[in-house]
């Protein structure tokens, strides 16, 4: 099969190999680690590079045609978040807080995954739409905001219910609860939108758009040519952190483990098909799928720990980083590429026919 070969060739890239290496280093309890300052700096650098690249592309190709993909991506992200919640709460029997936290972790996007995807495409000699970087930035908070809104709604409802059963002599507590919810939401909104990931990404997109290829030339060596090398260094640290968490996977349980693999696959393939339907290029299709498939493990804790402190971070970080991230970059990325290639060669017009034919 074509994509087994693809998986294999993807497996043997420096990015994936150094990630696996990091996992092994952690498993044998090596003291290897990338100093904190470097591993804090690298995501900022990667996002700046992604943003600049995206902005320059958008300047070349215009951004009118990004509007529909963007709204579709937002809609899918919201739908998927709700879907995750139902599955986790009903089938997985997780409590309200963990369910919403996990639902949004998987509804959100992962910037590191996105970087790896871009590098994967580069390796395949395929390019993608620049505006996807902008969609990455916009998708970041969407899913969190929904989940936090719903969690707070649920909590106020519970408080209200309790109040009423105690005869409503004092509604001030209730008001306070709702008030707190609002405060929290506006705080989270502010925190999300001013979060370093979004800020550097949007900033770099705009700067890339302004400076164009020409203005970029003087910093191209740092922000373009060094990109893959920088990811490699970051992947060592990601591997180490993932490796340190492997023991926790047992605590995550079989249900969440399955969820962490099946859900991204489902979301990703849907993403690929929809993007193909929207007329994105082969590379763009893959990246669109990857956006929807990816889970957030850097931004998530920072936002969720404040917004839903009752949820257990060990659940959402471990599953997103320890299971979904490796699965996405090693297995799902080539699968989506294969699927995207398939539906792209068939021609996008016959696409939906093709799928139904093939699946029937």
């Amino acid at each position, binding site marked *: 099969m074509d994509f087994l070969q693809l998986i294999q060739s993807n497996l043997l890239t420096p990015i994936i190999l150094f990630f696996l290496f990091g996992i092994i280093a952690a498993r044998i309890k090596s003291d290897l680690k990338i100093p*904190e300052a470097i591993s*804090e700096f690298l995501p900022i650098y990667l996002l700046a590079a992604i943003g600049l690249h995206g902005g320059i592309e958008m300047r070349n190709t215009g951004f009118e045609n990004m509007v529909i993909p963007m709204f579709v991506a937002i809609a899918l992200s919201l739908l998927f978040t709700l879907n995750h919640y139902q599955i986790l709460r009903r089938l997985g029997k997780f409590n309200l807080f963990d369910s919403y936290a996990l639902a949004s972790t998987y509804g959100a996007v992962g910037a590191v995954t996105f970087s790896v995807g871009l590098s994967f495409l580069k390796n395949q000699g395929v390019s993608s739409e620049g505006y996807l970087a902008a969609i990455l930035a916009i998708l970041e908070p969407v899913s969190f905001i929904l989940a936090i809104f719903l969690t707070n709604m649920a909590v106020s409802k519970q408080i209200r219910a309790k109040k009423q059963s105690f005869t409503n002599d004092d509604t001030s507590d209730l008001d306070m609860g709702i008030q707190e919810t609002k405060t929290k939401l506006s705080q989270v909104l502010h925190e999300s939108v001013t979060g370093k990931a979004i800020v550097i990404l949007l900033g770099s997109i705009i700067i890339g758009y302004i400076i164009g290829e020409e203005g970029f030339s003087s910093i191209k060596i740092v922000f373009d040519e060094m990109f893959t090398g920088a990811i490699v260094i970051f992947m060592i640290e990601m591997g180490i*952190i993932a490796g340190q968490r492997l023991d926790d996977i047992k605590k995550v349980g079989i249900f969440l483990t399955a969820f962490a693999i099946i859900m991204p696959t489902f979301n990703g393939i849907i993403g690929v098909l929809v993007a193909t339907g929207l007329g994105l290029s082969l590379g763009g299709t893959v990246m669109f799928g990857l956006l929807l498939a990816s889970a957030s493990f850097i931004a998530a*804790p*920072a936002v969720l*720990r*404040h917004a839903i*402190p009752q949820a257990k971070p060990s659940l959402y970080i471990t599953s997103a980083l320890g299971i979904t991230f490796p699965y996405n970059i090693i297995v799902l990325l080539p699968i989506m590429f294969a699927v995207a290639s398939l539906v792209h060669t068939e021609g996008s017009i016959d696409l939906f026919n093709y799928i139904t034919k093939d699946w029937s």
Partner: protein
Amino acid sequence: MKLYNVKLLTVTCEILAQKNIIEILNKHEITGYTTYEVDGNGERGLRGQGFKNEKNVKVEVIMREEKLQNVVEEISRTLFANFALVLYVSDVGVLRTEKF
């Protein structure tokens, strides 16, 4: 140089709870504090290995005894359940009580 007795409250907690602590301090009109990142181990396991978000922070606050009770009460009420957090109080002597 007479030293006046005041209290030193030390909170060791996960770094994402720092904001909450400082908000509580502000609520009680305490603006002075010192913070620094630390590693540690406790009920919630080893902290400080991976992402910066998983480090601990120590927050140290010199304050008059009057305020201590309320601050400690609010921290324990709002944060003990959900955050990795250890808190202790010690006696210290300072020169300029008007600062605290």
